[in-house]
């Protein structure tokens, strides 16, 4: 290594100069984020195409969720079956009603109704309170515009489609899907143990960290399934696509059912994203994010044994 070689990765206790340590911090972060991890410390975890499609997918999900909620606001009610309008009872709705105490935003789920004034049904946008299903800060664009939200939605739907196909075809061809994500028989048997590990927030170390754990595999398979479901239920809402593949209407139980399943799948994807981000933070955010940026993952060592 040259004189500009890597900055010390382990913060040495003998370095008591906190100012020097603070100054070294940005360089250390940069090294952590971009530095190559040696074969001894870790391994090349994610191929370039997986990393690229991961980030494009993340951007698509942000825009599709935001614009989808804006589109939802044009008719914030969900039904089952082929048809549904204001005359029908929704199983889920957001809305606003006038009460003696002023306007109230509500969220209705089945027979229950909750007061969600200020967030759902009735919230502030453009400096004034208004009837609005999802609040401004959740939607893309932030102002209510069905036409513009549709533009964003269809733009990123196309990107998601090509990105998803690239990922799936590459993963099948390179056997990434079969080798790394599809659970083995041993994995299935290890499910109870993996659940316990997750509850104890215990993350794999050493050789075990070279593979995904079984819950992780199932979660990734699940989100692939959900994205496929999103594309299909989304297309089932299109009257043009209905003429192409009318059987999709029957598969999902009708046009309004497809719309509702589209929404429920989106909610499950959001749940996945939240759990995914929490796990990234718990498992070591810099190491995890680096491995998705330059591919290199440092294998976490089991320090509990060092102390014994």
């Amino acid at each position, binding site marked *: 290594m040259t004189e500009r070689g890597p900055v010390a990765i382990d913060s040495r206790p003998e370095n008591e100069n906190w100012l020097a340590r603070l100054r070294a911090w940005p360089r250390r972060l940069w090294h952590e984020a971009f530095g190559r991890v040696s074969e001894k410390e870790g391994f090349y975890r994610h191929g370039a195409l997986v990393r690229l499609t991961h980030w494009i997918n993340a951007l698509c999900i942000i825009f599709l969720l935001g614009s989808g909620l804006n589109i939802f606001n044009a008719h914030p009610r969900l039904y089952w079956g082929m048809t*549904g309008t204001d005359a029908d009872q929704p199983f889920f709705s957001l809305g606003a009603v006038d009460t003696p105490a002023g306007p109230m935003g509500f969220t209705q789920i089945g027979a229950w109704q909750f007061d969600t004034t200020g967030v759902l049904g009735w919230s502030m946008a453009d400096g004034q309170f208004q009837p609005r299903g999802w609040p401004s800060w959740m939607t893309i664009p932030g102002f209510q515009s069905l036409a513009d939200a549709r533009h964003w939605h269809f733009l990123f739907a196309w990107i998601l489609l090509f990105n998803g196909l690239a990922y799936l075809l590459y993963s099948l061809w390179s056997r990434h899907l079969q080798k790394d994500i599809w659970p083995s028989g041993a994995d299935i048997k290890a499910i109870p143990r993996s659940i316990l590990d997750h509850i104890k927030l215990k993350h794999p170390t050493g050789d075990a960290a070279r593979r995904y754990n079984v819950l992780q595999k199932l979660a990734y398979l699940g989100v692939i399934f959900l994205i496929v479901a999103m594309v299909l239920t989304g297309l089932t809402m299109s009257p043009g*696509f209905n003429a192409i593949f009318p059987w999709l209407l029957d598969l999902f139980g009708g046009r309004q059912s497809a719309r509702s399943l589209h929404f429920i799948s989106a909610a499950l994807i959001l749940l996945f994203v939240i759990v995914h981000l929490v796990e990234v933070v718990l498992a070591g955010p810099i190491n995890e994010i680096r491995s998705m940026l330059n591919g290199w993952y440092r294998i976490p060592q089991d320090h509990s044994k060092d102390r014994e």
Partner: protein
Amino acid sequence: MAKVKDITRRVAILGGLGGAGYLIAKADSLTMGSGFQNVARVVEDWTMSAQRGLMGDRLAREYRASDISPFFKPNGTYDPGTDEYNGHVAQNFANWRLRIFGLVDKPLSLSLAELRRLPRRTQITRHDCVEGWSAIGMWTGVPMSLLLQAASLKINARYAVLRCADNLTGEPAKGGEQSPGQYYESIDLRDAFHPQTIMAYAMNGKPLDVAHGAPLRLRVERQLGYKQAKYVESIEITDSFSGIAGGRGGYWEDRGYEWYAGI
């Protein structure tokens, strides 16, 4: 020293993340810009090409009589309400005429009685509003292909532009600034000659009522509700719609919605 390849990669990674962050942070102001609106029109072209390439002349699904929605939500204009229109309502539309003109050899002017004597098609189809709701109704009317054949199109004919009797004020709650304007719509000849594209004068076996577009409306199945123009007075055959009203081919198209409403 880091290798050039590594530096390029870092620049690409940081550039990508920065670009994505910019898109997310600036989404609202980008939405208002012409660049984004132009991108949206390119995307609309992809969607239209892809759908039309796959669908050919396939029919929209037709339903059973028992599937007809007991309540079919009227939308947009509920009643044009002008003196002229009210006069037509009082006369039961006896003097209403559908004019077909423009790039045709034989301009036509047809009364409702004449339209009812022409061959008709009845179809039970689903109506999907761009807002998200759906209802099923039964429509009876004259296939547009018959009308256009009778008018004999000129070689440069490309679009059928339908002008309506209603002046829609727009509903600000449903999407920003909407200036009032005469309702109109346009379809191209591929949709105009589709067997399910009809000029409907009856709904669920009865003459069209005012809320649903009396006396005559378009049904262009395989597209969303806003294409189904109500209160239709004329069909102009043109080679372009860029010189009409806002130039985008329809009332809602002029207010930001897609001209191709198949999705």
